C-alpha cells in the first residue's frame, strides 16, 4: 500500500552507503538509523527535499531497548528515539531512529525544525528520562509535577498495586496543589506591561467548556488573551505502559478508551497493526463489517462534537437532539456488539461475532432517519447568524501552519489540505467504497465544523454501501494467531489441545518485529506503533493520537481573541481528553 520510492536509496546517496543502516519492519515503512551527531542533518535534509518533502513530523517517541531480546539487525542502544515523518506529496512515510547509550542519555532538540516537536520531546523526557538539549521548556507533561521516576522505563512499576497503598491527606493534597500553581515567570510571561497588569485565569481542569479535564491558563489583558498555556496530564491513564502488561488480545478494551467517543474506531488501528505483525489476512465479510461499524462510530463521535459545539455557543437544544440520535445509533451498536460506548468488539483477524439477524433493517432505518436530521441541523446550527458570526474568521490556521504543527483529520482538511488516509492509503477495505472527502478553504472554526458535518453525510453513504453489499463469509480469519483451533477437535489430538489451550489462555504469540498502523480516526490520524519481542505481550505500544497535536496549537489560535472566542475554538477542535493524555 505504501509505495517505496527509494527513500533509503536517496539517503544512502546523500549520506554515503552504509552510514545510515536500514531496518526492515513489517509495515513497509522505510526505517533508517542515524547517529546522534548527524540525525539533525538527516531530518533537515528530509524536510527540505525537492519534489516531495517530509513536511510533517507525525510523532517523536522512544523505546527502552534494555530488555529487548530480538534486535540483531539494529545498532546497539539502551534507548532509541524514533522520529516519524510524513510526506504528503510523495504519499510516503519515513522513520528515523537514533540509538542512545547510557541510563539517562541526552539528545539535541528539533523544536527549531518543527514547532510541534515541543510537546513530543517533553513527553519523551517525562516517560523515559531522555533529556533534549536546547528545549525551551523541558518539564513534565503527562505525569504530575511531583512525580518521581520516568514511567515507561522498564524499571518503573506498572501497577498501582505495586507502588504501595495510596495515602493522601488533606494536607498532602494542599502541598500537591501548591506545585500546580501557575507561575508566569516559568513560561517567560510578564505580569504587567507598564501601565496595566495582566490577569492569569485558570480555565479548567474542572470546567464545562474545556470538554474534559485539561487546564488552559490564560494571560488576560482586560478581556483580550495575550497568551495561553495548556496543561495536560490530568487524564493520563498509562495506556502505553498497560500495553506492556496485557496480552495482545486483552489489550483491545484499553484501546476503546483512548478516544472514548470513538469506540470501535480505536480498535481499528490496533488490530491492523497486530495483523501486520502476525501476517494475518482478514476475510472480506469481516472487513466490510469493520468498515460499517467504524463509520457508525464516526457518526456517533461527530454527533457529540456537533452537539457540544452548538452548546458551547449557547444553543441548548441541538445538544439534546443529537444525543437522542446517538441513542438510536447505540441501539444498533448494542444489538450488534452488546456494548454501548466501549464495545471492544474488533478482534485480531476480524470481529468478535457475526451480525445478528435483523441488523440490516435497523441500519437502514437509522440511515434514513439520520439523513433527515442532518438537514434539519444545518438550518439550526450551520446557517445560524450568531454561530457564523462567532466562528467565521476565528481560530484561523493556514495550510503551512497546520502541516508544521502536525494537524491531521478534519482539522487539517479545514485548512485546505486534502489528506484523508482512507483515500490516500486505503486500509482495512476502504478502497472498495465510494465516498468524498470534504476539504475546507479558510481553516477557521466554522470550516472545521463544516468538515465534520459533511463527514457525517459521507459516513452514512459508506454505511449504506456496506448495507447493500455485505458479502457472505467468515467474520474472522482462521489464522492460528487469530483463532484458536476448534474445541471439538481438541479431544482428538494433542497438538490441537495444546494450541487451543495456549491460544485461549496465553493468547497469540506474535512474532518479533515492529509495525505501525495509521488509521483515520474521527479526530485525525490515530496510530499504533507496536514493537513485538516475540512474546504474548507487546514490548512497546506507542499510541500517536491526533488531539495531542491539536491542543498544542491552541495558544497560536487564540492570541488576540477573547475568552468567548477561545470557547468557540475549543468547541471546533474535535478533541477528547483520553486522546490527548492516553
Amino acid at each position, binding site marked *: 500500500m505504501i509505495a517505496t520510492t527509494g527513500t533509503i536509496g536517496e539517503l544512502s546517496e546523500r549520506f554515503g552507503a552504509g552510514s545510515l543502516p536500514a531496518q526492515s519492519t513489517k509495515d513497509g515503512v522505510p526505517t533508517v538509523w542515524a547517529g546522534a551527531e548527524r540525525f539533525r542533518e538527516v531530518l533537515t535534509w528530509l524536510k527540505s527535499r525537492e519534489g516531495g518533502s517530509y513536511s510533517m513530523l507525525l510523532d517523536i517517541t522512544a523505546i527502552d531497548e534494555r530488555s529487548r531480546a530480538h534486535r540483531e539487525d539494529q545498532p546497539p542502544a539502551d534507548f532509541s528515539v524514533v522520529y516519524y515523518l510524513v510526506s504528503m506529496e510523495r504519499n510516503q512515510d519515513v522513520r528515523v531512529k537514533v540509538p542512545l547509550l547510557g541510563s539517562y542519555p541526552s539528545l539535541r532538540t528539533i523544536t527549531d525544525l518543527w514547532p510541534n516537536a515541543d510537546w513530543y520531546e517533553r513527553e519523551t523526557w517525562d516517560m523515559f528520562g531522555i533529556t533534549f538539549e536546547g528545549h525551551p521548556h523541558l518539564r513534565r507533561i503527562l505525569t504530575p509535577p511531583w512525580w518521581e521516576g520516568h514511567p515507561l522505563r522498564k524499571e518503573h512499576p506498572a501497577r498501582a498495586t505495586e507502588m504501595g497503598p495510596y495515602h493522601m491527606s*488533606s494536607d498532602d493534597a494542599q502541598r500537591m496543589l501548591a506545585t500546580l500553581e501557575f507561575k508566569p515567570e516559568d513560561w517567560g510571561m510578564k*505580569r504587567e506591561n507598564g501601565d496595566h*497588569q495582566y490577569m492569569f485565569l485558570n480555565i479548567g481542569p474542572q470546567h464545562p467548556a474545556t470538554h474534559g479535564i485539561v*487546564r488552559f491558563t490564560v494571560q488576560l489583558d*482586560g478581556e483580550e488573551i495575550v497568551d495561553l498555556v495548556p496543561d495536560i496530564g490530568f487524564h493520563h491513564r498509562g495506556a502505553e505502559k498497560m500495553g506492556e502488561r496485557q496480552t495482545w488480545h486483552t489489550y483491545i478494551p484499553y484501546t476503546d478508551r483512548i478516544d472514548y467517543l470513538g469506540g470501535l474506531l480505536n480498535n481499528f488501528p490496533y488490530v491492523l497493526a497486530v495483523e501486520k505483525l502476525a501476517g494475518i489476512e482478514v476475510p472480506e465479510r469481516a472487513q466490510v463489517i469493520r468498515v460499517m461499524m467504524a463509520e457508525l462510530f464516526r457518526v456517533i463521535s461527530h454527533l457529540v462534537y456537533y452537539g457540544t459545539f452548538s452548546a458551547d455557543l449557547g444553543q441548548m437544544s441541538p445538544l439534546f437532539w443529537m444525543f437522542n440520535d446517538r441513542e438510536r445509533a447505540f441501539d444498533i451498536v448494542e444489538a450488534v456488539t452488546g456494548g454501548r460506548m466501549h464495545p471492544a468488539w474488533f478482534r485480531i483477524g476480524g470481529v468478535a461475532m457475526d451480525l445478528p439477524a435483523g441488523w440490516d433493517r435497523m441500519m437502514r432505518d437509522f440511515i434514513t432517519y439520520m439523513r433527515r436530521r442532518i438537514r434539519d441541523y444545518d438550518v439550526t446550527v450551520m446557517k445560524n447568524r450568531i454561530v457564523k458570526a462567532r466562528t467565521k474568521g476565528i481560530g484561523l490556521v493556514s495550510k503551512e501552519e497546520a502541516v508544521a504543527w502536525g494537524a491531521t483529520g478534519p482539522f487539517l482538511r479545514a485548512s485546505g489540505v486534502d489528506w484523508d488516509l482512507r483515500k490516500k492509503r486505503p486500509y482495512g477495505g476502504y478502497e472498495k467504497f465510494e465516498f468524498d472527502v470534504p476539504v475546507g478553504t479558510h481553516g477557521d472554526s466554522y470550516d472545521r465544523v463544516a468538515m465534520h458535518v459533511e463527514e457525517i453525510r459521507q459516513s452514512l453513504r459508506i454505511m449504506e454501501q456496506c448495507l447493500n453489499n455485505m458479502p457472505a463469509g467468515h467474520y474472522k480469519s482462521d489464522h492460528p494467531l487469530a483463532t484458536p483451533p476448534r474445541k471439538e477437535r481438541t479431544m482428538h489430538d494433542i497438538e490441537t489441545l495444546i494450541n487451543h489451550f495456549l491460544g485461549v489462555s496465553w493468547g497469540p504469540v506474535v512474532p518479533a518485529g515492529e509495525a505501525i498502523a495509521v488509521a483515520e480516526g474521527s479526530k485525525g490520524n490515530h496510530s499504533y506503533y507496536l514493537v513485538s519481542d516475540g512474546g504474548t505481550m507487546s514490548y512497546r505500544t506507542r499510541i500517536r493520537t491526533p488531539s495531542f497535536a491539536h491542543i498544542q496549537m491552541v495558544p497560536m489560535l487564540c492570541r488576540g481573541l477573547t475568552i468567548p472566542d477561545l470557547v468557540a475554538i475549543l468547541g471546533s477542535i474535535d478533541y477528547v481528553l483520553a486522546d490527548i493524555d492516553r
Partner: protein
Amino acid sequence: MSAILSLAVYLAVVVLLVGFLMLVTHLSGERHFQNGTGTPYESGVPLTGSARLRFAADFYLIAMFFVIFDISAVFLFAWAVAARELGWPGYIAAVVFMIETVAGLAYLWKKGAFDWGARRLRDHRERHGIGRAA
C-alpha cells in the same frame, strides 16, 4: 409627623426581618472547616495573582462615558417632568441639548473610543508612533 412615624415603623420592620433571616440562616445547617473550604474556587487549582489589578484605561473610559451620558439623561428626565409648564421654548432648549449630546457621541464614535480592548490602544499607539506610557 405620621409620615415619619410610618417610615420609621417600615424601617424597623425591614431591619428586624432582614436581621432575623440572616440570623436564622447563619445558625442553621452544618459547617465544616477543612483546608480548601475557605479558598476561592478557580476550577480546582490555586489562583495566580489576584483579581485586584490595574486594568487597562479602556474600562475606566467606558465608566466615564456612562457617567456623562447618564447625567445627560438625568437632565432630560428633569425637563420631561416639567415639559408642559416649560412649553415650546423648553422643548426647543431640550432638542438643542440633545443635539449637542449626540454630536459628542458621534465625535467619540469616530475617534474610536468605543473600539474595545487594549488592541485599540496598541493600534492607536502604533498609528501615531507613540511609545509606552504616553
